[in-house]
Every structure is written in C-alpha cells, then in structure tokens.
C-alpha cells in the first residue's frame, strides 16, 4: 500500500500520520473519523463497531459504485452476483442506511437490459431511497438521455440535482458528458453556474456532501482520473465547515483531505483497477479468483449533526 498522493496542497495542520493510515487500498476496512479537523484512523474490528455506535448520529447512508452490469470478461464473469453480495453486505450493516448513493457506471454498455438488471437487483436493497449519478459507461450512445429518464430524479441539465437530509446538503454532479479530446472529466459552465447558485444561500455550518462519478481531484490525470474544471466547483464550497466529496470511477478506495474538504473514492462492486501508474492502462484488472471479493466493496457513512464529524467506513465483500 503505497502513498500515491504526490503533492500536499494542504496548509492547515491536518493530522498527516492519521491521514496516511486511512489510505487503505485493499483490506478488510478502515474507519476514518474526522473530528474538529483532526483525522483519526482505526482498523475495523468489533471494538471499532462500538465506536461507530457512539458516532452514530442523525444520518447514515451508503455509497456503492461501478457495478458495470453487462461486463463479463476475465476480471469478473458475474458482476451481477458480486453486486448482489454488496447489497447483502449493505443490508447486514448494524445501522441500516437511510438512503444509498450510486456514484455511476451502473452499466457497462448503457444497454436497456443492463439498466433493467441493475434496477431489478437494487430492489432487494433495504433502504428508503437510492440516488444516482451517471458514469461514462451509462451515457455511451445518447449523452445520457435514457439514464436521466430512468434514474434522473428531477435532475436538471445533464443530470445534476441537490437535496437535503437531516440538515446536510447533498449535491449530485455529472462530469462524464461533453468530454473534450485530451481532457479529463468535465462539469461545464451551466452546471457550475447552477452549483454556485445552489449553495449560495446555505449557512457555512451546513455539512455538504458532493457526489459524482469521476474524482474531483487529480488522482492520476494520465489515466483520465480527474476533472478539468473541478477547482471552480470546489471554490464555491471552500467556506463550508464540512465538505465531503464522494466519487467512483477508479475502482479502488482512496482518500485525500484539503482544508475542510475530504475526498473519498469507493471500490467497485464489479472489478478492481490498478493503482495509478502500476499498469499499462486503467482497464479491468484480473486478480486470483479467491482474492476478487477482497478488492470489491461498499462505503458506509455516518454523520453526527453539529459536530463536523463524519465516519467513512470502507468494507470489502470478503
């Protein structure tokens, strides 16, 4: 497990050692607790589950990502089965999530039958609501028209929207359409203008959670792991006391902190991808069959209102 965050853009004295411990790429799970700007990390075990109980506050939700329904190559010949295992894992959490976020690449090829299978599988998720943002694999032939129709939830433009839950403000962003040659993910002027307006009247003490498919920080631009105009988006959020950015796309867990903004990517429920620069390309990575479920997983998030503290727990399928 290497430290692949090359640059430290953070000048506010965040606990570095605790932060590095939180960058678990593969493993049984890491609990990272951010309290008052200090990050503490705990290996996940029964004792930690008690701590989660202490932290259990007003809000608990889950992030899943990159289910790639329709993929059937060597890296995982049955992505529907591993998605079902991920759902079972969510359903077995000590605190049932109020809702679930799917951060995109629901399907592999944007086919209607793939969306059907995804929707059908998610019916067994024990939660009240599911919110979606598209990945580039969901918008292949129609710039996302079918995706928006089925999973759009009153979205605007290419599929962005926001909602409130227990005093926290959630923002779904789309950075996978209208991509330019040689570029990275892209939010676009219209979405940025909407975002600026959307948060303008919120109190700075409102916890913000942003979710979108491609990472909003430069994880590894050579592989397209970043968003060209994310700086502008983040500038609208700098004044808030607690901002969490949840992304997918890279099929591995990764975390970074910049000031009050915590960036986190989730594992895929379908197949892993290599660490930055560790392979010729970011494509699906084959691991031994008995290791596959150790590199797929879900993310559980618990909020404690009024404390700027949230617990992000990644756990693998095995």
């Amino acid at each position, binding site marked *: 497990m290497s430290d692949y965050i090359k640059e430290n853009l953070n000048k506010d004295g965040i606990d570095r050692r605790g932060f590095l411990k939180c960058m678990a790429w593969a493993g049984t799970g890491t609990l990272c607790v951010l309290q008052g700007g200090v990050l503490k990390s705990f290996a996940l075990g029964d004792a930690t589950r008690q701590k989660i109980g202490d932290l259990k506050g007003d809000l608990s939700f889950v992030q899943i990502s990159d289910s790639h329904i329709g*993929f059937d*190559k*060597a*890296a995982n010949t049955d992505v529907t089965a591993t998605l079902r295992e991920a759902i079972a894992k969510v359903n077995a959490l000590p605190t049932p999530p109020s809702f679930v976020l799917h951060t995109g690449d629901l399907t*592999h*090829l*944007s086919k209607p039958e793939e969306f059907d299978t995804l929707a059908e599988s998610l019916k067994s998720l024990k939660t009240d609501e599911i919110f979606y943002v598209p990945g*580039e*694999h969901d918008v*292949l*032939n129609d710039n996302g028209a079918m995706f928006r129709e089925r999973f759009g939830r009153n979205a605007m433009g290419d599929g962005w929207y926001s909602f409130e839950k227990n005093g926290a403000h959630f923002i779904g962003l789309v950075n996978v359409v209208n*991509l*330019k*040659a*040689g*570029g*990275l993910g892209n939010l676009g002027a219209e979405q940025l203008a909407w975002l600026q307006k959307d948060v303008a009247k919120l109190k700075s003490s409102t916890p913000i959670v942003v979710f979108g498919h491609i990472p909003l920080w430069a994880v590894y*631009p*050579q*592989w*397209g792991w970043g968003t060209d105009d994310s700086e502008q988006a983040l500038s609208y959020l700098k004044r808030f006391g607690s901002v969490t950015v949840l992304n997918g796309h890279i099929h591995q867990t990764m975390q970074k902190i910049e000031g009050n903004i915590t960036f986190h990517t989730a594992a895929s429920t379908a197949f892993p991808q290599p660490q930055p620069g560790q392979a*010729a*390309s*970011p*494509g*699906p990575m084959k691991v031994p069959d008995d290791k596959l479920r150790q590199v797929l997983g879900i993310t559980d998030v618990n909020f404690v209102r009024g404390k700027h503290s949230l617990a992000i727990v990644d756990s693998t399928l095995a």
Partner: protein
Amino acid sequence: MQNKKWILSAVLTVAAAVAVSTRPGLTVKAADQMGPVAVKIDNFSFGPQTLTVAPGTTVTWTNNDDVPHTVVSDDKVFKSKALDTDDKFSYTFDKPGTYNYFCSVHPKMTAKVVVK
C-alpha cells in the same frame, strides 16, 4: 517501301501501347493501401497513433480492450457508436487532410489520421 510500312505500323503499335499504359488513374499504390488499413485499440490507446494513408483508403478500427471505446473525430467528420470488445468501425478517407480523433468515453486517448 515495305520497310517503311513495317516501321510505321511498329511505331503506331508502340504508340498505342504507350497510350494504354499511361491511362490516367492507373497509378501504382503500395500494396497495403489497396485494401482496408487497420488501427488497433489496445490498453486505452490507438495504434498506430499517427496513421498516414492515401485518399480513398478505408481505415478499420478494432477494439481489443475489455472496456468499450469510441472513435470520434475532433471536427465531427466521423463518429462511431460505442465499440464493445472485438467490435469494428470503418471510415473511408476521401479528402486529404489531418483528422484528429479521440475516444469520447476516455478522452485522454487521442490519435490522428493523415491523408495525403
């Protein structure tokens, strides 16, 4: 007299032969450009990244990756639908020029076809 006639008919025959062999359009092309030319999509890249062909050549892209890719011209001259593994896309380049293109799903993948 007979010699002159013979020479005259020989000259005429040669002239006719020369005329036939230099009929416009029948220029010699490299053997590999008579049929379709291939671009392979592998490991999130187009190979060759720069392809040079003569006008009238048909280029065929084949996706060898486990993820879908597209072939989209920067100037909207051509655009494939999403290519799954082993899917192909062909385009015939009639006009000379440089055609930059990329994969609209993974836009860091860029390449070009030079037609001259």
